[in-house]
């Protein structure tokens, strides 16, 4: 028996070396592929019950994995993308402040308005100075209107991005379902599923960019995916992720929530909220950060209308009326100390003071802008050319502490100019902390990805050394075959 067995064992060794060679070539081909994990051949020696060896058997192909590193990569990726989405939005918002040198922000223009008021107060009869005051005021209104529009654009873009993110989540879940079926079936029937496992890991990684996930592995490599809030995303089949996009945003608009498996996971009414991933970052931006900034702008607008409001001069009990800065609710002034949503988009220059719209510039000095025909609100009934009382009122009002809404994340008791500059500070500090968070997170993500690649990836040098070993072993097995062949030749020669 022994010669035949020797032949057979050598043959099985050749087959095993061939499989190993093909695996090495697969590894080299996949070396540059980000999601490729190193494959290796699983071999076992076979010994029969009677103790007789039958050589080597190729049991299958294995791959190198590191579950802990992979799970931490999933998590840090999700955190990173959420911060990235927030930062992108904050940067767009920061453009409303613009370069402080260019002085386009509401805060800078408020400073200009103060200077224009001081100039006008120095020479109240000068129409050029009055005109300058009016145009500065009008710039401020435009800036507030545009900032408000920019904030709502950021919200609308975030909403559209959420819709894109939801689409890609659904697509990824579809791919996951296909790959998962292949893996489960392959595990059952013993096929080589290592490439499908690599692809599934890549899909899960792409999924974690959109929404934070946790995974659970069941028998036969079947994977179950939950959001980081615990809602089922994938279990046997993909669950539906749905979202109704909103096309136009106003300050009062509330964006819709994202539903996973019927549970709201992102948005104002989330029950099992997700806490990472692009989806989370975008909803944070749409529902928290941008609305807060909008509220701050609204409060600046309300402060302006209040500062320039006109009081009843007749001694009667007439209510204050909106003056130079007015709004759609004029002649009344907005309710004091509370947020009036959307005011920054609504604020405008009173036409009665604008000569271009048939108004009278003198009203800036004299008062009565709310209603030029109502003598009760005329501060300068005798039309004294040197009257500066009104300008002084304005200047005082700008520097007078007033009460702002407490829910806008700024000091509720502040002067209007102080409030406007803290709003700038709030946005800038948010942006800076988001930038540094993202920097730290991207280092974590890249380090984790690197460690994972070091553990599971292909080292070309190692593969080449392995190839040399395989070559040697193959040559030895081939040599063995030719030796057995020679022995049989000798035997046949003696038989003839």
């Amino acid at each position, binding site marked *: 028996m022994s010669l035949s067995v020797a032949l057979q064992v050598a043959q099985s060794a050749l087959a095993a070396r061939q499989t190993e060679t093909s695996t090495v070539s697969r590894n080299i081909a996949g070396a540059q592929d980000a999601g490729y994990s190193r494959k290796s051949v699983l071999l076992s020696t076979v010994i*029969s019950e009677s103790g007789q060896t039958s050589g080597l058997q190729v049991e299958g192909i294995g791959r190198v994995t590191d579950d802990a590193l992979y799970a931490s990569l999933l998590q840090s990726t999700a955190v990173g993308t959420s911060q990235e989405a927030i930062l992108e939005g904050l940067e767009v918002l920061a453009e409303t402040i613009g370069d402080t040198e260019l002085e386009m922000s509401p805060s800078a223009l408020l400073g200009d308005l103060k200077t224009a008021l001081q100039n006008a107060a120095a020479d109240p009869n000068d129409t050029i100075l009055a005109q300058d005051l009016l145009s500065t005021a009008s710039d401020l209104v435009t800036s507030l209107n545009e900032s408000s529009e920019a904030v709502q654009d950021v919200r609308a873009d975030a909403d559209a991005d959420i819709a894109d993110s939801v689409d890609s989540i659904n697509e990824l879940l579809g791919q996951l379902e296909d790959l998962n079926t292949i893996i489960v079936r392959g595990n059952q029937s013993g096929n080589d599923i290592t490439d499908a496992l690599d692809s599934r890991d890549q899909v899960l990684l792409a999924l974690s960019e959109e929404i934070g996930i946790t995974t659970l592995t069941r028998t036969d490599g079947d994977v179950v995916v*939950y959001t980081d809030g615990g809602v089922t995303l994938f279990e046997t089949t993909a669950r539906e992720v749905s979202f109704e996009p909103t096309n136009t945003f106003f300050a009062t608009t509330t964006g819709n929530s994202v539903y996973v498996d019927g549970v709201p996971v992102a948005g104002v009414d989330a029950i099992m909220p997700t806490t990472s991933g692009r989806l989370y970052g975008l909803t944070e931006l749409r529902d928290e950060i941008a609305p807060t900034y909008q509220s701050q702008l609204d409060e600046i607008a309300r402060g302006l209308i209040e500062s320039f409001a006109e009081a009843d001069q007749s001694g009667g009990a007439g209510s204050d009326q909106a003056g130079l800065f007015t709004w759609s609710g004029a002649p009344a002034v907005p309710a004091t100390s509370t947020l009036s949503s959307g005011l920054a988009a609504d604020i405008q220059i009173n036409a009665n003071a604008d000569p271009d719209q048939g108004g009278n510039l003198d009203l800036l000095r004299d008062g009565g802008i709310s209603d030029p025909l109502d003598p009760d609100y005329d501060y300068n009934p005798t039309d004294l050319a040197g009257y500066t009382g009104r300008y002084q009122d304005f200047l005082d009002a700008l520097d007078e502490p007033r009460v702002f809404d407490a829910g806008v994340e700024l000091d509720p008791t502040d002067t209007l100019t102080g409030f406007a500059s803290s709003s700038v500070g709030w946005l800038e500090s948010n942006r800076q902390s988001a930038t540094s968070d993202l920097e730290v997170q991207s280092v974590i993500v890249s380090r984790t990805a690197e460690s994972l690649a070091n553990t599971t990836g292909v080292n070309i040098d190692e593969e080449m050394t392995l190839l040399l070993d395989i070559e040697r072993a193959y040559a030895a097995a081939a040599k063995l075959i030719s030796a057995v062949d020679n022995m049989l030749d000798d035997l046949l020669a003696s038989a003839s």
Partner: protein
Amino acid sequence: MGLYGVMRTGVSGMNAQSSKLGTVADNIANSNTTGYKKAESEFSSMVLAQSSGSYNSGGVQAHTVYSISDQGSMSFTTSKLDLGIDGNGFFVVADGDGTPVLTRAGSFVPDGEGYLLNTAGYYLQGYPIADGATPTTIANGLGGLESVNISQNQLDATATDSAKLWTNVPESATIVAPADLPSANVATSTYSAKTSVVVYDNLGNELTLDVYYSKTTETAADSEWEVAIFNSEDAAAGGGFPYGSAALSTQTLTFDMTTGELTGASPTDINITVPNGGTFDIDLSGSTYLAADFTVTEVEANGNAPSAVDSVEFDDDGVLYAIYANGDRRAIYQIPLADVASPDKLTPLSGNIYQVSTESGDVRVGFPGEGGLGDLAVGALEGSNVDLASELTSMIESQRSYTANSKVFKAGSDLLEELVNLVR
């Protein structure tokens, strides 16, 4: 008698050696035949009655013996239907008429109708398995066996009949008012957490069960949670409450505030009847109540959607599994191994098969690995147990013996000729 006797003895020796050469020729011819067992010639002497003073030469008789119990070496293949036996025993196969015989040649392929047959055209026999029940064997006979067919389970659906759902419910959850519990099934119903599980009804339809967890009470000693299960198909447009029909089942779990686990008195499962499907308990025993987010720690439900057989494979116990396209696997046959008391005394027939003879003893049937029977090697074939080198040496040996016998014959013939020449 003398010289004629010598010649006859030479002839018997030549006959015996030619018989041996015959077995060698057969062995060499079948040295690559799967499952072939080598034949050998053994000799026995024939002694004649002796008279004093002269020797009556007898002769030699050749007997053919088979090394059927001798294990051949295993060679591995890529086909999952190739089977080898490592140890004692034989596959039970049958010819077209259904007559069972034994073989060690396990290279099976399906024929046009899905029956597994080996190279020599014999059908593999096995016990059919219905609904996962272990087949009963008849220990001393080949009854109850049928030809294994791998194409019969074309489309099959199984309703879910067991499930497990272990979760951690968050300690931080707020208490849901009784009027707003999911079990009330109103538009304002709310819950602490939700998950869902896919199950299958009798027709293999995929059903998603929405499972709602709601905290109802919390005391210093324990916390009660309502578990309500709804059929997701009944959900209101856009998902959620109110569902078109009441909860399929509700249960109240009580968690111990000290251990965070279910109290001894708390139910540990929830009974559910799937619409047009099975009635079973979902195991909730591993549920916990800890200060962590809602987390599913174990989720399982059996059953499968209608699915075609994708492939079949044997396991080491001889169970043939059908692998469905959805990855599910189900046992459809178990093949037995048969053994006899004296395998070497079986009668070999063409096609590497062996027939039970009176000398071999009765057949004994069991499953691979049981009661002294060998293991099944899947994806392997048992090669011929012929060793070419020893066959060649015994060929030379018997060649020489044949020549020697012919010399004896010639010597006798020559002496006889001398004797005849004396008469002239």
